[in-house]
């Protein structure tokens, strides 16, 4: 069987601000982070380092990785053997625990922020002039981040988690002296607040236990060992998070599983809630404030709704039901604002591109007035995972799922398709036209490829990979009768 390669689940463009330095494409596939020259497509670096040599799967024991890289799970490969089971005893971490689900680049193109390890660790890398990834820091969050962003000034990481909390962390961690507030454990109930015999007995046990604890060594508190502030909290799963600056004011927009979009002020006033943009009917899966129209917010949910908002006033400009248009179930997965230089045109072409969970169709919109206007959609060879606009070339690059059939989140192919595809947008008399193009960079990246999936995955293991890449369906609320 031909080998299957990890698709790029995340794609970012690091546009260099200084002359003479290359623009970079940063991508994550499986548990690896890659950096490419965005012109030639030459691979410049891969993290973690120890796999640089591998096109064939690594076997044997795990060599010590550089720095304090986590003990990433490496699978011993014994092809065509029934060894899968014994290697995966009950209670062991799942195969997919080591992907890089979230990836962000800084506005100046100098830093890359990714969640790695079991998805709980935030790592910051500096991009050297030769495109090398230099790891600066790694910080383990209390809960696995579900959304990651940088403030508009690029100095602060914002990170939201499944428990609805948003933390701010300095991009470059400074000296941090942890303050531990010693709090003796005192049961909060008293004989005045509980009355049943059982509760009173429990209370007495708690008191004895607390006394014992106080005598033994001081407990290690769960406090994090680096500077962080919990600045926003939803009592829900935080599904997306963006930070924008408009008219000199900065804002943080957060979406959750309970249909809410919350507009808060930026740091240090994130506790001031300016608005709730309410109207979605299910999990708010994606938020996008177009760089060229920052007064608008385009948001999508897992019921296939797209909304266009005057988000500072919580007013709805437009509501599009993609399930109605497409006549099928639809969950919005990605919304991108892309601005492309056009040779000969008076200004850049601005488009909003929308992808759906487990779909190979890219929906294309322009903004006219305060509303989206649908243009022809574009079909790709696989489900759309990531997208970047390379403005200087007028090209949009899309990463597609190489492994699953187009339109499916669980049907595995027998051999991989292309990792990246590209197209150009041409503004013609009949409206926008999208033309799929050949691009040297794309061709070079595709020819080198990423790392292979372990061979002979069983159904359960495949499902783990499916669920790690396509999790909207699982996150969406189930409606059940009481």
């Amino acid at each position, binding site marked *: 069987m031909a080998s299957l390669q990890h698709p790029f689940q995340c794609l970012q463009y690091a546009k260099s601000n200084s002359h003479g330095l290359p623009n970079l494409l940063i991508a994550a596939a499986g548990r690896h982070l890659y950096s490419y020259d965005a012109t030639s497509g030459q691979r410049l670096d891969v993290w973690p380092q120890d796999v640089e040599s591998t096109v064939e799967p690594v076997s044997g024991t795990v060599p010590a990785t550089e720095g304090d890289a986590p003990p990433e799970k490496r699978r011993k490969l014994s092809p065509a053997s029934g060894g899968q089971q014994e290697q995966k005893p009950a209670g062991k971490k799942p195969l997919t625990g080591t992907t890089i689900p979230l990836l962000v680049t800084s506005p100046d193109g100098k830093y890359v922020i990714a969640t790695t390890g079991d998805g709980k660790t935030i790592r910051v890398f500096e991009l050297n002039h030769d495109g090398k990834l230099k790891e600066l820091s790694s910080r383990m969050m209390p809960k696995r981040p579900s959304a990651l962003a940088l403030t508009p000034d690029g100095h602060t990481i914002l990170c939201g988690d499944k428990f609805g909390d948003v933390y701010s962390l300095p991009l470059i961690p400074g000296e941090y002296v942890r303050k531990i507030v010693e709090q003796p454990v*005192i049961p*909060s*109930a008293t004989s005045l*607040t509980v009355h049943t015999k059982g509760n009173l007995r429990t209370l007495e046990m708690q008191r004895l236990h607390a006394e014992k604890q106080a005598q033994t060594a001081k407990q290690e508190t769960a406090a994090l060992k680096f500077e962080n502030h919990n600045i926003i*909290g939803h009592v829900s799963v935080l599904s997306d998070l963006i930070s924008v600056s408009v008219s000199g004011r900065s804002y943080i927009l957060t979406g959750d599983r309970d249909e809410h979009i919350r507009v808060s002020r930026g740091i240090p006033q994130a506790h001031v809630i300016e608005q709730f943009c*309410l109207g979605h009917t299910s999990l708010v899966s994606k938020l996008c404030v177009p760089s060229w129209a920052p007064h608008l917010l385009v948001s999508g949910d897992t019921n296939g709704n797209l909304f266009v908002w005057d988000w500072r006033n919580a007013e709805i400009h437009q509501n599009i039901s993609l399930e109605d248009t497409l006549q099928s179930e639809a969950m919005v997965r990605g919304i991108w604002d892309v601005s492309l230089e056009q040779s000969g045109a008076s200004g850049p072409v601005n488009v909003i591109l929308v992808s759906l969970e487990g779909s190979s169709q890219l929906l294309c919109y322009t903004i006219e007035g305060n509303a989206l206007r649908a243009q022809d959609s574009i079909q790709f060879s696989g489900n759309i995972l990531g997208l970047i606009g390379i403005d200087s070339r007028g090209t949009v690059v899309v990463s597609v799922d190489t492994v699953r059939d187009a339109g499916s989140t669980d049907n595995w192919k027998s051999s991989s398709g292309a990792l990246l595809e590209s197209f150009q947008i041409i503004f013609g008399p009949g409206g926008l036209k999208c033309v799929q193009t050949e691009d040297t960079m794309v061709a070079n990246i595709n020819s080198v490829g990423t790392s292979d999936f372990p061979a002979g995955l069983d159904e359960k293991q495949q499902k783990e990979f499916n669920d790690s890449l396509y999790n909207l369906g699982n996150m969406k609320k189930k409606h059940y009768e009481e």
Partner: protein
Amino acid sequence: MTTPSLNKRQKREEYRRKLGEQTANDGEVKMPQKKFFRQRAHANVFSDHNLEYPRTPNHMDWSSLYPAFIDQDPTHTNLSGARKLLKDVEVIDIGCGFGETLILGLEIRTSVSDYVRSRIRALRLRQEQLKGTSQAPTTQQEETQAQTERLPDAPAPEDEVGTTDALVPGNYENISGIRANTMKFLPNFFRRGQLSKIFICFPDPHFKARKHKARIISESLNAEYAYLLRPGGMLYSITDVEEYHHWILRHFLVQEGEDVSAGSVKHLFERVEGEELENDPCVTVMSCETEESKKVTRNKGNKYVAVFRRKENPEWPA
């Protein structure tokens, strides 16, 4: 063993159905009995339950909750097509329990909120009957004063709140209750700055430390309360758990040595103390008149009150 519980449940349902059908013409209006509204003490605030909540505040149908306040112009409707009220709800009681007499009680436990609604319905019917027998004029507009002007002679069987044998101002038309998970959905019911008072009376203490994140007071929830309260609006809290009282103070007031460089919701509130607190009739009602407070009194428990005023938002950073 399943049969008796099934019977019990059937009985309970039958009872509630009959209660719901009574009208003012049926002779003596029966007050609901709590034994038919049994409910576990806690509800999981993180689960999805089967909650009903409006998509936005403009979709909320208030007309069925406050029929006496419906705007007479039938063309005045909100986004869900429901008739509008003459005025907005602006006082809420979060976790109202078995029947505080405040303006809108929000309660997550189904049976408890059913009980509150049944009792309000019965109280309203009783008032209707009483109106028929006496000529006493009633006012329907004195919303916030209702609970403070309640007739003092009301005996309180079973700690019940609400007079059943005399006319009261407002005729209980100004109070209502709904089932809601306020930790998740308050902004679906109320607009920014719509509320003037929020009551949090004897909240579930969630004694275990790992359950503390389920507490109704936290810095992130306080930010939401600040969003709903207009500047000058008040948040009232009372608890019989001393540790929880300190928790509340800790989550509303900047602590000594606390790092607030990244900003803090505590800047949006100030504590109300001294004379102002003593003269606030709401504090008296909260500490002595509510059902839970009577229970605490009976058990000779302590009561800890903390009241906070919503300050103006800070200026945007330059």
